[in-house]
């Protein structure tokens, strides 16, 4: 199958900000989310969750709960004896529901199915559980102390999609370790003129997709049907089939609109428990998390890091050493991939002589951590880039000038054996610096910063799509990508329309229903436009090829399509089916990847109030280095959304734990950015060098800004006089730092 790609000059459908295809439904409140759906005979599920961080379940008494009118059944770990109840796409370490032990505050202990939500809630209250406390592994540093209690004593069993080579045996609470080495760092540090070093912490963060995790499950004979707000329905399907011993094709997952994802709905979340409950109830069951429940379903890893950077007296970067501990909570979830991606991001895109990165994924008695937009890069870019700025300060170099000299250029190696750099980082950082007026004088207590990083993007490149040209001349695209706000249905319609030279309004994009839409690995890692988009392009080109074959010439216009179809089928029916596929080049292994390097380049201007420690973000700029923008307006919206999340991650978002207990599990005390947190100026610079592997040279975006913005803010705050090594930059933390600087005599303002 060969994609037919025409020259840029003739493109009418891509590169244009066509209106969102889902705007009307969403604006009128007609768009259906799982929580809005009803299934005949459906029951309401509710989950009893652990009030403690670590303990043995001595007894569960469900007898009172079962007697409440309307209660159909209560599920506990004792109900799962007929299956192997452990799952996890990376490591099979998690039981569907707690078995004998609870390992985090909020773990599922029992689940009720009832005729009404009220009966289910009353039954949960009536379940009596007797816990015996076990020692709590409260944080990641304690977890790696010799002699620390163990969160689990199970051997590590690889999951279906761990994708990280052979799993090493568990070392205490460390379930996965990613190492990246180049040259001889010891020797480089021994001869360096400048060494910057520090210890840093990054907090646990909640993704807060406004729609919480919601699942409806139905089990009928050997068929399981799910309506779930999952980002990766095909991966969830495989895990459900594996857990319940069914062929993959007997599990059907339908995904309506998602009310935001940001990684929180990636991989398997509430689906296994809902299926187990529906199986016991013998009727469909809906479970809809409350916000506090989704906060303990997944979150961003908190992290502790020690880093040092070596340079010459004239600011040439020589070497870097990174040791970091990622708190993956009680179960690995996507922790291993987060840690590997962080490891790749740790050195930063400079010409190092040597580096060593040791990133560990560590079990603790906290809720599991998984994916959140720009994972790994968000964790480490602010640290690495603050050390680069400190090198610049000590060498009396402008931070932008240092980056101009030492950033990698297109084609240079980023990671041995991996994809070379496929972006113009120097050009990108120049553009964002200009957007925050880098060279202009600054007001007092104001600072500016830039940051540059890369995020290994694309995940595993397997996607497929089907295009159907119907007898009325309209086109339907079937593709498994989930629509969670990012706009793939709009972008795919534009791509298919471009290939077929028709207006994108004549294309409808449907998905995802694993029974009817072809396989798409996942919706995440900024991969959809690049990889699924390429499959759509190829599927549309396949139709075009069929039409040309019917015509016997390539000289056909879109006005000829209906006549050609009638000629082929002999009546006013039939349809042409185009198939598009993307499969890995080479082995497709992680080491050979990534599919592309997502650019994380940003700039910020901030102002600090030394009396209160309050940091105000005045300006931000991000580079959406997308190769080719299929829909520029949607690209801008992606970067703007990521920028606001970056401001939240940098300035105030933090899940607070005390001895393993989550203390702020409502939006009253976990604050996310509102309209009032918007900077005065927020600029997204779209860069189109057509250097991506996707359709028309496109590559993904939407995550990089979330890594770049916190790093730029940290650097801007240091430029304003307050270097910080702990996020978020709350007023109290910043004020205390200023008091320390005053005591040291290093407060400059």
């Amino acid at each position: 199958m060969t994609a037919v790609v025409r020259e840029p000059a003739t493109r009418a459908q891509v590169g244009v900000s066509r209106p969102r295809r889902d705007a009307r439904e969403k604006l009128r409140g007609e768009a259906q989310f799982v929580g809005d759906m009803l299934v005949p005979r459906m029951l309401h599920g509710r989950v009893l969750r652990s009030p403690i961080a670590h303990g043995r379940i001595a007894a569960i008494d469900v007898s009172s709960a079962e007697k409440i009118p309307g209660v159909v059944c209560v599920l506990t770990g004792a109900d799962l004896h007929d299956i192997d109840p452990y799952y996890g796409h990376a490591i099979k370490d998690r039981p569907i529901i707690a078995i004998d032990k609870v390992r985090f505050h909020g773990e599922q202990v029992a689940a009720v199915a009832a005729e009404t939500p009220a009966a289910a809630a009353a039954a949960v209250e009536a379940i009596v559980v007797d816990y015996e406390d076990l020692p709590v592994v409260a944080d990641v540093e304690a977890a790696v102390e010799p002699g620390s209690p163990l969160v689990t004593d199970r051997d590590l069993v690889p999951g279906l999609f761990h994708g990280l080579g052979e799993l090493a045996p568990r070392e205490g609470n460390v379930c996965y370790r990613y190492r990246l080495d180049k040259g001889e760092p010891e020797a480089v540090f021994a001869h360096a003129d400048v060494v910057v070093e520090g210890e840093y912490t990054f907090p646990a963060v909640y993704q807060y997709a406004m729609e919480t995790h919601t699942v409806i499950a139905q089990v009928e004979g050997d068929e399981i049907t799910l309506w779930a707000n999952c980002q990766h329905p095909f991966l969830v399907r495989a895990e459900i089939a594996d857990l319940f011993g069914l062929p993959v094709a007997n599990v059907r997952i339908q995904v309506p609109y998602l009310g935001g994802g940001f990684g929180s709905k990636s991989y398997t979340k509430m689906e296994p428990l809902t299926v187990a409950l529906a199986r016991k109830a013998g009727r469909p069951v809906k479970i809809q998390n409350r916000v506090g429940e989704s906060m303990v379903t997944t979150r961003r890893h908190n992290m502790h890091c020690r880093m040092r950077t070596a340079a010459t007296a004239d600011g040439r970067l020589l070497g870097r050493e990174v040791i970091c501990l990622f708190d993956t909570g009680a179960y690995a979830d996507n922790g291993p991939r987060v840690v590997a991606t962080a490891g790749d991001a740790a050195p930063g895109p400079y010409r190092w002589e040597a580096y060593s990165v040791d990133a560990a994924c560590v079990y603790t008695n906290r809720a599991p951590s998984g994916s959140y937009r720009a994972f790994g890069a968000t964790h480490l870019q602010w640290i690495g880039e603050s050390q680069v700025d400190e090198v610049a300060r000590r060498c009396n170099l402008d931070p932008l000038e240092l980056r101009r000299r030492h950033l990698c250029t297109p084609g240079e190696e980023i990671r041995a054996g991996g994809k070379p750099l496929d972006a113009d980082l120097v050009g990108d950082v120049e553009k964002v610096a200009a957007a925050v007026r880098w060279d202009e004088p600054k007001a007092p207590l104001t600072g500016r910063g830039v940051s540059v990083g890369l995020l290994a993007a694309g995940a595993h490149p397997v996607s497929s799509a089907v295009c159907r040209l119907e007898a009325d001349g309209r086109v339907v695209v079937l593709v498994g990508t989930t629509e969670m706000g990012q706009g793939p249905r709009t972008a795919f319609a534009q791509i298919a329309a471009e290939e077929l030279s028709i207006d994108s309004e004549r294309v409808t994009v449907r998905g995802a229903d694993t029974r009817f839409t072809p396989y798409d690995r996942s919706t995440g890692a900024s991969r959809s436009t690049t990889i699924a988009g390429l499959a759509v392009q190829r599927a549309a080109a396949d139709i075009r090829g069929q039409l040309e074959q019917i015509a016997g010439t390539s000289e056909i216009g879109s006005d000829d399509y209906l006549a050609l179809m009638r000629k082929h089928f002999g009546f006013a029916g039939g349809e042409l089916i185009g198939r598009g596929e993307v499969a890995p080049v080479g082995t497709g292994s992680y080491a050979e990847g990534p599919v592309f390097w997502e650019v994380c380049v940003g700039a910020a201007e901030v102002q600090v109030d030394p009396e209160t420690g309050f940091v105000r973000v005045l300006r931000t700029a991000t580079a959406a280095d997308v190769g080719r923008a299929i829909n520029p307006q949607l690209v801008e919206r992606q970067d703007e959304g990521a920028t606001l999340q970056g401001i939240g991650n940098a300035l105030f978002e933090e899940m607070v734990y005390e001895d393993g207990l989550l203390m702020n599990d409502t939006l009253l005390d976990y604050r996310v950015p509102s309209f009032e947190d918007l900077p005065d100026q927020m600029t997204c610079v779209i860069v189109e060098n057509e250097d991506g592997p996707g359709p028309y040279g496109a590559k993904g975006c939407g995550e990089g800004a979330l890594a770049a913005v916190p790093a730029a803010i940290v650097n801007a705050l240091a430029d304003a006089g307050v270097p910080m090594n702990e996020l978020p930059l709350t007023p109290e933390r910043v004020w205390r730092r200023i008091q320390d600087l005053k005591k040291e005599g290093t407060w400059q303002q």
Partner: protein
Amino acid sequence: MEISLSVNGREIARDVEPQELLLDFLRDSLGLTGAKRSCDVQVCGACTVLVDGLPVSSCCLLVAQAAGSEITTIEGLAEQADFARLEAAFTRHAALQCGFCTPGMLLTVSALLKAGELGSEDAIKQNLSGNLCRCTGYRGIIDAVADLAGVG
């Protein structure tokens, strides 16, 4: 308990539980699912409806408290003549992504536009801050509202 109220111009009399929330009543009893449940604590605004013309978080109001009131949900707003302007402005500026906050956002915007409380960018930011959006970064929404309010 017996209550009556008007929802989107339709008079409704129902027997409700004293503890029943307006949000659950609208979604479960009337099938009006445009109002969304998210934070449950009157922070996010996804459940916003208009009660006698004013934006209210239906997750924190008992349906009994709304007895005798006129309720407008997104389904009702979408049938009003001036909705086309809102729809066009939000579409033009791509002022929505996942769409989960969108109905509540539009109801707040429609009420505050009528009240003349969105007369500057600062006023827009301040007065809409009871409606969260996690996707858009707010820029598109501000641009759409500024257009509607004739700001800038």
